[in-house]
């Protein structure tokens, strides 16, 4: 997707300058992280979805989503999406976001953090992305049928070591009677599923972006690599694989950008938004699976080395499938929704999009 707003252009420029895959691989350490995060923070991108009166940059949902597409195209491995989601959740309850990196919990659909009568939070949240790197955690807490939104100091929680497929932090966070820095009841119209739906749309956009990058570098490689005395891009079998990669990339782009557009223009998280978000996560995850396999196949052994940039995109796209509920989980949920609405209501639901 071309960038079509100033926020996304800013993000694209920062990523190009400070998150170049080849440079990061060559560095072999974390020296790139500081300058990248400073530049993103200076540009106000981590707090894109926090209103200006709460010290955020007050970007629209659509602008924020386009930042995430760009982050996917560069396989950015800093807690940008996570801080944006956390800022968004806190803003729902009017809680101002502190500076520095944040993440959001729970991040797995079946995990639950409860708000106890003494005002403390208890529970276990698994697969929380970048929890180790986060200074603060935005928490959705349940209190019976009611929900509260809390800002928690990460140091108040026990955070276990853990990594996803691409070796980025993905941690279990244990809340053991944690006293939040700030807690407010979720507003009346708040849908407790909405943080997960925002999360899966964010991951869908990132996966679609990573697929765009995979397609580009794989096409380029096939036009350079010579075998059997010609460029491998001239072999029909390779061409057809690349055409399939383009197809999967297209499906991911269409599904993710449709879901982002739907949320950006919605007034509530209704069945139609559920369809858009779940479909995006399911289809983007399927595309990640098929697309990454093709990208590796075309690259051959060189793409399997840690020195090559390909794995930055393939492994991250595969890892992002697992965050905020994987495609199997959302397929079951979507299937149940469709079944409950009934056969004759399926087409009207699809056609309403």
């Amino acid at each position, binding site marked *: 997707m071309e960038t079509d707003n100033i926020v996304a252009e800013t993000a694209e420029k920062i990523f190009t300058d400070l998150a170049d895959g080849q440079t990061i691989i060559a560095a072999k350490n974390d020296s790139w992280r500081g300058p990248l995060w400073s530049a993103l923070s200076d540009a106000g991108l981590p707090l894109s979805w926090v209103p200006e009166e709460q010290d955020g940059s007050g970007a629209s949902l659509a602008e924020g989503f386009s930042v995430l597409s760009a982050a996917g195209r560069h396989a950015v491995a800093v807690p940008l999406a996570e801080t944006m989601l956390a800022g968004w959740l806190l803003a729902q309850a009017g809680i101002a976001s502190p500076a520095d990196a944040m993440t959001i919990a729970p991040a797995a659909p079946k995990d639950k953090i409860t708000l106890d009568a003494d005002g403390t939070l208890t529970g276990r949240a698994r697969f929380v992305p970048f929890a180790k790197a986060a200074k603060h955690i935005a928490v959705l807490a349940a209190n019976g049928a009611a929900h509260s939104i809390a800002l928690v100091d990460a140091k108040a929680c026990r955070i276990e070591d853990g990594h996803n497929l691409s070796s980025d932090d993905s941690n279990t966070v244990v809340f053991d009677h944690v006293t939040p820095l700030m807690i407010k009841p979720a507003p009346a119209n708040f849908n407790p599923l909405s943080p997960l739906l925002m999360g899966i749309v964010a991951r869908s956009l990132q996966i679609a972006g990573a697929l765009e990058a995979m397609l580009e570098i794989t096409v380029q490689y096939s036009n350079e690599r010579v075998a059997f005395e010609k460029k491998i891009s001239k072999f029909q079998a390779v061409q057809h694989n690349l055409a399939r990669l383009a197809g999967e990339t297209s499906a991911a782009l269409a599904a993710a950008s449709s879901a982002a557009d739907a949320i950006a223009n919605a007034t509530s998280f209704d069945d139609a938004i559920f369809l858009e978000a779940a479909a995006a996560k*399911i289809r983007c995850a399927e595309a990640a699976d098929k697309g990454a396999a093709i990208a590796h196949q075309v690259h051959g052994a060189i793409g399997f080395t840690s020195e090559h940039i390909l794995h930055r995109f393939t492994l991250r796209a595969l890892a992002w499938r697992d965050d905020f509920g994987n495609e199997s989980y959302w397929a079951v949920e979507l299937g149940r929704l469709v079944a409950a609405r009934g056969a004759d209501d399926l*087409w009207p639901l699809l056609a309403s999009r």
Partner: protein
Amino acid sequence: MTAALRFDPIRLPPECEKLRIEVRAFLADEIAAGTFDPHKPNREDADAPEFSRRVGERGWLGMTWPKRYGGHERSFLERYVVTEEMRVANAPTRRFFVADRQSGPVLLKYAPEHVKMDILPRICRGEVCFAIGMSEPNSGSDLFAASTKATKTDGGFLINGTKIWTSSAHIADYMIAIFRTSPSTKENRRHGLTQFLVDMKTPGITVNPIMQITGQKEFNEVVFKDVFLPDDYMLGEIDGAWKQATSELAYERSGPERFLETYYVLTELVRAIGQNPDTRSAEGIGRLVAQLHTMRRMSVSVAGMLQAGKEPVVEASIVKDIGTIWEQQLPQRVRELAAFVDDTEDSNHATLDEQLAFALKTAPKLTIQGGTTEVLRGIIARGLGLR
């Protein structure tokens, strides 16, 4: 970037939703009146001339064409809505579908004025059926191997040869075909073919039906023996048909008919599974719905680009590649999930089984007709800069 793929999240404008309600009401009336059974895709009555006229009366044929030719000057997106609603309802569109989608636009672009004035209003009234004369016994995907000859004669051309796999030729009033007017050249093997309009009532044309594996006789062999076509039935540039083909493909390849052909088995599966599916059934349905939603959003995106005057040839080919493979796989997936459906007395199992049998037999053709998977991937590869 290499050729940047674009699938912007285009939404159908409000006028489309008003139209959709009208189309649904019309189709409900037709079903109530017994014109067609939405649960029976395998119909002997697929040619429905009266239905075709009524669709024309509603203004849903030639929707995007100029009013002077009987058209309605509406948008591609409005036409999109009519097409998808008809397809999902299993409406008998065979008589008018090709004319409306493909043949009319070719005539609009290349036919002489008096031919346009003669034929286009009749398409808009739902009165005429078109066939497409491309494939020959020795020329399928390799379109430019066509050898059926058009030989110049006084005031026109004489046609000799055979077209094959020609859908609807047995009921068609006209065909738009390509014939060989010159040999191909060393420099350009695509040279030498010319597009023509053929009146199917012209003496010398024989249509022989071919039975398909579904039991239908939907396609045909069409034999031309000294068939005279007047000069004004030549369309576009002589020997230059290859230049005229590519931009039409985006229209032909990206519509809802490229992924909804077997949709009925999904609806029926959801009905059979009921409101409380087990985990396996729920996951299966969820994935299929996610894939279908994505297909439709891709297809609407291409329709929006066409409406904006772009020529998204690569994107359209991607829609057909993914869409036809999806609609081909759908009956297989539904078959797997249907194994877990309880067969109670009031269940729709019989309907589902019958539909599935037909859909499974239909499936193989879906990735062949209108450009094979292999041809499409070649086009996509070219778009990616690989050839």
